[in-house]
C-alpha cells in the first residue's frame, strides 16, 4: 500500500471510530446538560396547590362528581366523560354527553397544577372551570337556577350543601327564583329572560351556590395527584449516576427517547416542568377539521366575560387576579390551544384538542410532517426548530412517553364515596 493510500485508510479508520463509538451517542451516559433538563422535569410540583384542604368539602365534591343530578336531564355526571378507570378521560376523540362535544376530554390527574383550565384556558381556577361544564349544552346541559333547585329539592344534597356552606337561598319562592334561568342561555330564550328578571341580589345568591359547588369539586380534584411514574424513578437514579443501565422499567429505547426529548427533538420547549407542560397556548397550524375552533381567542373572551374569574366577586384567595391585568388581545392567540401535560399520556388517547390523532406515534409524527390544509391564526414558528427524526427515533420517543404513566390512584378517591348520601 502506498503512502497516500495508507494515510487515507488511517483517516477512514479514524473517521469510522469517531462516527461509530462503542455505543451510539444516544445510548451513552447522560451529559450534565441532559441531566439538568431531566431534573427540571422531575422536580416536585408546587405542593401548595394540592395541600389537603377540608376533608368535608372534598367528600362532598367526590359525591357531586359522580352524581347525575348535576346534569339538566339527570343522565350524565362528570364521571360520564372523566372515567376514573381511563385516567379520567373517555377514550373518545370527542365526548358524548348531552351532545357531541367539540374538544377532547382531558385527564383530571394532577389537574390542580394547571395554570389555566380547559383547552382554551377559559377558566383561571379549578373551581370555576366546573361551571363552564355544567352549563355547556353539549356537556351537562344544565342551567344554574335548575341546579340550585336540584340541591334544594333533594334532602340529601340540600343537607350536604348547607352543612358546608350555610343556608341555600329561599328557592321555594318561585317568583324570585324561577325553575330555570342562566345568563349563559341563548339571548332571548326563556332561560335568559328568566335570569334577567331576577334582582341582582338574587342572581348573586345563585351565583354563590354555583361557586360553592365548584369549590367542593375542586377540593376533591386536588387529591387526584400522582408523580410516581417509571420516568420519575429513573430520574431519581440519574441524579446520582449519569449512566444507569437500562432495565425492564426503563428500557434502552425509553432511555434514548428521553435523551431526544430533552435534546435534539426540542420537546421541552413546550412540554417543560414537572407536568411536561409550559401551561401556555400554542398555534400548531392544525388544519381545520369539523368546525372552526379559535381556541385561546375564544378562551380569553370567555374569561373576560366570566364573573367567576379571579377578578370577579366570587373569588377568594385561591386565584391570581394580578395576571388578568396582562392578558393579550384575544386575536393574537387565535387557533392556539393549551400545551397538555404528558403525564399518563399513554392512557389518555386520542390526542390533541379535538382528538384527531389516535396513537402516540401519529401525534409525534405530526410534528415531523405537518399536514396541509386551511388553518386559523398564525402557526408558531417554534415548530420549525424540530428536526427530522428517523423511524427509530420516533419509536424511541414513544417508548419514553409510555414511561410517564403513574400508578393508579387509590379507590378511595376514584369511586363514589360510601355512604351514598353526601
Amino acid at each position, binding site marked *: 500500500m502506498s503512502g497516500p493510500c495508507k494515510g487515507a485508510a488511517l483517516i477512514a479508520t479514524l473517521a469510522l471510530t469517531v462516527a461509530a463509538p462503542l455505543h451510539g451517542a444516544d445510548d451513552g451516559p447522560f451529559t450534565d446538560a441532559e441531566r439538568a433538563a431531566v431534573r427540571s422535569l422531575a422536580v416536585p410540583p408546587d405542593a401548595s396547590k394540592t395541600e389537603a384542604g377540608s376533608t368535608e368539602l372534598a367528600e362532598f365534591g367526590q359525591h357531586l362528581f359522580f352524581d347525575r343530578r348535576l346534569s339538566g336531564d339527570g343522565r350524565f355526571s362528570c364521571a360520564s366523560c372523566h372515567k376514573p378507570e381511563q385516567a379520567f378521560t373517555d377514550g373518545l376523540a370527542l365526548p358524548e354527553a348531552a351532545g357531541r362535544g367539540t374538544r377532547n376530554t382531558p385527564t383530571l390527574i394532577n389537574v390542580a397544577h394547571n395554570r389555566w383550565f380547559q383547552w382554551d384556558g377559559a377558566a383561571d381556577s379549578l373551581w370555576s372551570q366546573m361551571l363552564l361544564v355544567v352549563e355547556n349544552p353539549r356537556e351537562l346541559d344544565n342551567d344554574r337556577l335548575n341546579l340550585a333547585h336540584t340541591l334544594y329539592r333533594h334532602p340529601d344534597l340540600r343537607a350536604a350543601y348547607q352543612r358546608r356552606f350555610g343556608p341555600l337561598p329561599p328557592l321555594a319562592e318561585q317568583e324570585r327564583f324561577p325553575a330555570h334561568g342562566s345568563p349563559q342561555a341563548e339571548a332571548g330564550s326563556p332561560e335568559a329572560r328568566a335570569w334577567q328578571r331576577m334582582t341582582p341580589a338574587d342572581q348573586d345568591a345563585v351565583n354563590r351556590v354555583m361557586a360553592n359547588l365548584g369549590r367542593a369539586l375542586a377540593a376533591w380534584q386536588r387529591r387526584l395527584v400522582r408523580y410516581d411514574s417509571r420516568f420519575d424513578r429513573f430520574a431519581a437514579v440519574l441524579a446520582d449516576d449519569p449512566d444507569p443501565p437500562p432495565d425492564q422499567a426503563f428500557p434502552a429505547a425509553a432511555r434514548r427517547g428521553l435523551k431526544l426529548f430533552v435534546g435534539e427533538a426540542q420537546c421541552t*420547549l413546550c412540554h*417543560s416542568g414537572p407536568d411536561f407542560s409550559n401551561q*401556555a397556548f400554542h398555534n400548531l397550524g392544525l388544519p381545520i377539521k369539523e368546525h372552526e375552533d379559535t381556541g385561546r381567542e375564544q378562551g380569553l373572551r370567555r374569561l373576560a366575560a366570566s364573573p367567576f374569574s379571579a377578578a370577579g366577586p366570587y373569588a377568594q384567595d385561591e386565584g391570581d387576579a*394580578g*395576571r388578568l391585568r396582562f392578558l*393579550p388581545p384575544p386575536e393574537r392567540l387565535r387557533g392556539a390551544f393549551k400545551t397538555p401535560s404528558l403525564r399518563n399520556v399513554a392512557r389518555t388517547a386520542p390526542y390533541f384538542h379535538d382528538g384527531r390523532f389516535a396513537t402516540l406515534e401519529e401525534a409525534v409524527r405530526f410534528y415531523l410532517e405537518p399536514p396541509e390544509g386551511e388553518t386559523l391564526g398564525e402557526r408558531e414558528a*417554534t415548530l420549525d426548530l424540530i428536526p427530522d427524526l428517523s423511524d427509530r427515533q420516533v419509536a424511541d420517543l414513544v417508548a419514553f412517553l409510555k414511561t410517564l404513566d403513574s400508578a393508579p390512584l387509590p379507590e378511595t378517591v376514584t369511586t363514589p364515596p360510601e355512604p351514598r348520601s353526601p
Partner: protein
Amino acid sequence: MITARYIPLFTLLFSLIGSPLALAAGGGDVAGAVPAQVLSEQGRYRVEVRQVPEPLPEGEHFSVSLRVAGIDNPDQPLGADAVSVQAGMRHGREEGFAHGMQSEPVVSARDGLIVVEGLYFHMGGAWTLQVTIDGDDGKDQAWLTLPCCGG
C-alpha cells in the same frame, strides 16, 4: 474616620463587580447576559436597563425598569407615552418574532424610569425585548436580548 470615607468607594466597587449589568455596560446583544444599554437602530435613543430580575423567571410575570433618553438630550428621560414594549423569541430569525408573549405588558413612568410590568416568558431560551420609541427625535426601535431563565 478614614474608614467611613472609604465605605462609598467600597460600595461602588462592590456594585460594579457584583453586577453583571455593570460588566455588560457598553451594550451589545449577547445571549447569556442582559446588556446594560443599547442604542436604538437609527442611533436616536439610548435604552439603559436599570432593573431586571436575575435570573429571569420562567412561567411567572416580572418587571423591568428602563431609562430611555434621546442621544442629544441624555438628561431628559422619555415618559411612558413615548415608549411601548413587546417581547418574543426569534429562534434564529433575523427579522420578526417566531412567536410573541402570551401577556400584554403595561408601561408606566416612575422617577424618570420606564417600568415595564407583565412580561411573561413561557419558554426557555433567548427572548428579545422590542422597545419602540416615538419621542421628539422621531420614531425608532431598540432591541435587547433577555436570556431565559437561569439553568
